[in-house]
């Protein structure tokens, strides 16, 4: 049964390569998107850390900024 699943009457090479390409594309897109997200978030955190206390207070008053700082493992 396993041999038949892999071989697929001679079409296995086509079927498996099509599925492998699809899953590889999914994984690549996910990883690239996640890296971009982490980069931007780190940039935000370091910029936020460099603000003086007055500016940091103003920035912290915005809900989204607070959300970004707290969303360490959202994705």
């Amino acid at each position, binding site marked *: 049964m396993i041999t038949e699943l892999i071989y697929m009457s001679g079409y296995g090479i*086509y079927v498996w390569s*099509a599925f492998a390409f699809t899953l590889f594309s999914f994984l690549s897109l996910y990883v690239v998107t996640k890296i971009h997200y982490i980069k931007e978030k780190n940039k935000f955190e370091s910029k936020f850390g460099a603000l003086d206390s007055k500016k940091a207070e103003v920035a912290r008053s915005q809900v*989204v900024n607070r959300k970004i700082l707290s969303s360490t493992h959202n*994705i």
Partner: protein
Amino acid sequence: MKFIFKFFEPNKIFLITSKAPKYVMALFVIVISIGLLEALIFSPEDYKQSHSVRIMYVHVPAAWISLGIFSSMTFLSLSGYIFKNKNFFLIAKSLAPSGFVFNVIALVTGSIWGKPTWGTWWAWDARITSMLILALFYLMYLVAWRIYEDKDYVLKVTSIITLMGIINVPIIKYSVDWWNTLHQPASINVLSKSSIHSSMLFPLLIMTAAFALFSLLIFLMKYNTELIKIKNKGLDRL
């Protein structure tokens, strides 16, 4: 109308989009697992194409989703101008990467399917060529966002690209009816009875749902990244 657009404000949307990815990811893993089992093991082989028909379960959903995303991008770009809401452009921009990847998947898996079915990896057939043209429009759209600094100019350029590209979408859809192509006419019709058997239709719909969930996941991640980028610029202005 203004009341509805209040819900489309990036600040309000971010409260949802920052939480949603983990749930969408979990749902995607469940649906793709069922879809793969159905597509590779439980669905029957075709009497003519044998097991090579299984390529359909990745090829067709990828093509459908890439067409759907491009149409949505055009609609969003137009809406952005009509309602003067820049968030529509941001949503369109966040949809583009997954649309492009699905387009490439449709082209590559179609090419792999073509070899055992037609005896060739590539033919300048109307459907394949029009899909390739769509990939070029996606590419132009993504490159435009990268190369132009002026925000208003990039909104104009990307909107023109989507408006020009949308002309190609009905050509892709009806190319199998208008010209003699290697592709067969549509087997699935929303308005009339589909000619595909339910044992093949079910895995096809499951895989389509999985692909739609994946594009939603990428959209959410990309949209969150874009919002953080905007907030980064906001911190510079403080």
